[in-house]
């Protein structure tokens, strides 16, 4: 009787634990959140970026190592562009060089991109769509008297024709050590052009060269589009020599006070050592 009870408990425990193990294995995949954006650069190439995040009890985190498929769609047609794997920042990036693809556009000029993840044991599937118009920016530099002006122009490319990018903002930046610094806001007139005054007080390289970036940012119709060019209008950078004493650790010779202190201390200590050794030698010599 006792044996049968023991066996029953054992079987119950084994089933319970194995069931618990199965439950553990059957844990739900986590939700992921996808941000889909596009960048168009100077060389007319385009990047498709899908940023993937998820969250747990400790908060939001980037999901690394997910394969994202990028597609181009137009009505019933679909073109698979390719796949990219998300990096440590959770970003899967797919680059399209200029001229490699003829983008299909609808009547209003929109191009439709799709980014999708098919799902895995750890994460649910996710898909995002993006519709943008194809825009091209250009900037030119002109000096008018003492004024230094940056002229810009924006053109929207439709399915057949093109038209000016009008009544919109364009932001100007120059790169700094940690991020780009905004130097001016521009405005597209009806004819798709505009200009800004270049602030010549910004610091460039030793010759005054600075990279000027004009950028449409996260635009609902155009995405991110930027164009840049180098101009020598900035204030040349000059090395400023530090005033006052330099830090002695970097100098080839130690400061005089340190050398003097060390000599006094070491001479004092080792002098006494020598005295003690001399006494020992004296003991040795005075032996019977």
């Amino acid at each position, binding site marked *: 009787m006792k044996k049968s009870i023991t066996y029953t408990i054992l079987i119950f425990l084994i089933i319970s634990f194995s069931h618990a193990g199965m439950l553990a294995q059957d844990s739900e995949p986590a939700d992921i959140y996808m941000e889909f954006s596009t960048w168009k650069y100077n060389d007319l190439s385009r990047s498709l970026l899908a940023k993937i995040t998820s969250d747990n009890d400790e908060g939001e985190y980037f999901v690394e190592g997910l394969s994202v498929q990028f597609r181009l769609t137009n009505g019933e047609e679909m073109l698979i562009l390719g796949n990219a794997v998300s990096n440590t920042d959770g970003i899967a990036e797919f680059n399209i060089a200029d001229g490699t693809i003829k983008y299909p556009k609808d009547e209003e000029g929109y191009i439709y991109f799709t980014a999708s993840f098919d799902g895995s044991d750890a994460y649910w599937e996710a898909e995002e769509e993006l519709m943008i118009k194809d825009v091209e920016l250009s900037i030119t530099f002109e000096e008018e008297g003492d004024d230094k002006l940056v002229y810009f122009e924006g053109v929207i490319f439709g399915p057949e024709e093109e038209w000016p990018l009008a009544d919109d903002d364009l932001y100007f930046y120059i790169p700094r050590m940690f991020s780009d610094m905004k130097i001016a806001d521009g405005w597209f007139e009806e004819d798709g052009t505009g200009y800004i005054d270049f602030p010549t007080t910004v610091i460039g390289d030793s010759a005054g060269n600075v990279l000027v970036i004009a950028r449409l940012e996260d635009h609902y119709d155009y995405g991110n589009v930027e164009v840049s060019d180098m101009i020598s209008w900035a204030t040349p950078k000059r090395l400023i020599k530090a005033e006052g004493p330099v830090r002695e650790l970097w100098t080839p010779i130690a400061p005089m006070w340190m050398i003097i202190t060390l000599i006094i*201390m070491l001479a004092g200590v080792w002098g006494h050592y020598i005295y003690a050794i001399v006494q020992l030698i004296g*003991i040795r010599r005075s032996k*019977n």
Partner: protein
Amino acid sequence: MESVNTASFEKLREFRSQVERPKTISIVWIIFLTLLILWGIYALIIQITQGHIVTGMRDNVVWGIFIVNFIFFMGISYAGALISGTLHLFRTSWRKPVIRMAELITIIALFIGPLYILLCIGRLDRLPYLVLFGRIQSPITWDVIAISTDIFGCIIFLYLSVLRDIAALRDFSELKIPRWRKKLYRILALGYTGTPDQQKKLNNATDIMAVMVIAIAIIVYSVLAWIFSVTLQPGWHSTIFGPYFVIAAVFSGTGVLIIVMWVFRKIYHLEKYLTKKHFVNIGVLMLILAAFFGYFTFSEYLTKWYGSQKDDENLIHLLMDKYFLMFILSNYLGVLMPLIVVGIPKFRTINMITITAVVVVIALWLNRYLIVVPTLESPYLPIQDARLDWISYSGTWVEWALTIGGVAAFCLFFTIGARFIPIIPVSEEKERKRKEQIL
């Protein structure tokens, strides 16, 4: 001519079993310690062949248990020097049974401590560069100069302190020791027979070196503290680090001294020489140092906490969160226990004082860990894309094996040292006259 050795023979008869052939239990103890050292050597081979990846040290937390051990051993060494130097200089009446142990602690710890620095270095082949291309303005160079000066000074001081006993051992014909040891005693005794001239020379040299070892101990441990405090790191950049380190060193040293006294009292039945008075006296010293240590610790963290600088706040948060238990054990238990046990006469027994000393030694080791590791885990700039084990440190078995190996080496050298020289000085000196001369 006065032969000081004749007067010492009576005492030497008492200690002859200590310096003669070791007992079986001693041999077993030595084998046990040797095995632990061999385990450490095996870990060292693993570290050399596979690189420092086998340790917990990484790009951000570049110092770990090794440097903690280095500070710890150097601390107890300086404490030994300070205690033995002070006791000698002031001719304290109860010093004799204690002074030899303090001297041995000084020398042995001074040889083991710097080895941990070598274990930290990835490119040992570049070690000569420290001498060849060292810059005087570098704190590392200060440390190299200071430690080598200290080692030399402590060896001279120990040698001067044991010279009379070596001469007594040379002259004690009843001693049954191998011939090579007799020869060694003869060479090391330098022909000392206790003539007035020899005594004068020896006393002069010993007094001078006692002053020197005290001064050097303070300077050298301050230099070690400055290696940290001249660095602009949260938790290290502090003006009180020099005296704080010196106090912590002597505090830990008194703890080790009490433990050593207790062990030798038990092994060699030194109840006649190491009385409760010795334990209480060193215990009171430990109590005073505990109070000073508590004061410095409180002052250090209070100013950081009230200043509320972002990086200091991060460090204090880390200490109060991840290292909370360690912090409490190190800075509360380690301070309060000596105050209570030694401060209240009822608890002031030899065993209680020794248990307190053990707690103090552990607390002080943890204190050094809390100085080194959490600071390196709190860098000024945020670390992007860093793996968790680069930011967060924990010692590996290799580091622990080498730590245990170091402790075993300390015990082994102490055991061997005690076999070579009587652990209680046996030679006599005309104390009163000398004291009058000095004062």
